[in-house]
């Protein structure tokens, strides 16, 4: 049995704060989409979310490489991005 990822839990909470109670999926899952059928975040919400992650984890994203649409589809993608930038 694998231990729950604490980084996933923190990113999930950050996303939940941005999305608001009405848009938080019932079960926390790394594969949950950030957009439709998940948190339903649009680009403006996503910017709020990445800035909240920068503040929460003391990191700084690089837009040219980090915000390629194909790299940022699910909660797991965001968790890996935060981890790659040094977030713990």
């Amino acid at each position, binding site marked *: 049995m694998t231990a729950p990822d604490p980084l996933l839990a923190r990113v999930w909470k950050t996303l939940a704060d941005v999305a608001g109670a009405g848009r938080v999926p019932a079960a926390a899952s790394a594969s949950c989409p950030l957009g439709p059928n998940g948190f339903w975040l*649009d*680009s*403006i919400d*996503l*910017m*709020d979310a*990445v*800035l909240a992650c920068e503040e929460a984890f003391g990191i700084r*994203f690089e*837009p*040219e490489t980090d*915000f*390629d*649409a194909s790299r*940022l589809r699910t909660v797991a993608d965001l968790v890996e991005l935060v981890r790659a930038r040094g977030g713990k």
Partner: protein
Amino acid sequence: MAEPLESPAPPTSPVRAGLIARWRARSAIYSPAVWALMIALDVLPWPWGEDIVAHLFGATGLLRRDRRQRALAWARQQPDRSAWRLAHALCAFLGRWAARSKLLGLREPDDLRRHLVVEGEERLDAGGAGVILLAFHIGPPNADIALKVLGRRVTSVVWGRRDQPGWWGPPWRSLFASNPDLVASGNPDRWLRVLYQARRILLDGGIVYLMADGAGRELAHLPLPGGPVIVRAGWFNLQRHTGARVLPILTHAEGRRQVITIHPELPMGEADPAEGRPRWQDAIASLLADYVRRFPEQCFGLAFRPWGRAAEPGFTAPQV
């Protein structure tokens, strides 16, 4: 047995190659017929081609049922104007806008510079913070390019690339190379990157130019004669994250001159821009109402509303 000779590729003349490159530079908002016309007319000195496109759009606009109906419906809501005359002028202005968007006949920045007037430019330098120049789809296009031509460093947030290879000559390309746009490339997924980059520029004290009434999440409906303006949320979010000053920028044509007016800073609210919302909404609505009253024939974006939809996957702007 002799080896078969390879037939050499037919030579492509520079003229033919140039024409092919120009054809391939067509933006999605131009129909093939209009684009072919643009290529043909670009050889003429400014403003001949622009005038011809405007006359053609004026004439054909009233023959095209959809465009005529929209123009007339909007024109009938404007007081003290002949609806048919105004509808014709709107259609003609749409043609002028289509031509000017690609700088038809304007060979280099100096050709445009000679016909520019900027009012309120001192407002750009009035404070230390970054500046959001908030533009609308009314009047001649490319007020941001005009400011770049005048030596201002302005970063524009745009939906599609404007400096397609093959269309503009080296003087225009170098203007864009030294002061590039932030381009979403017609892909809503790219907005995050574009918004994030715009935020950094604002935090560094730069100037970001973007449309208030383009695509994206709706923020406010501002009532105007003929229908509301839908204000989108992108600029508001940038202001919220940066504390940038927001200066509405409007532009109109006066004969051959393009007059660009940079208006006073919007009252956004000190601590929370949402609290200042009634005041900035009133300020924008007042500016636009005054513009519509003075230059109704230049309000093509309000009459035809080509940008009235959200930026959803598969969204494509309608063609001129």
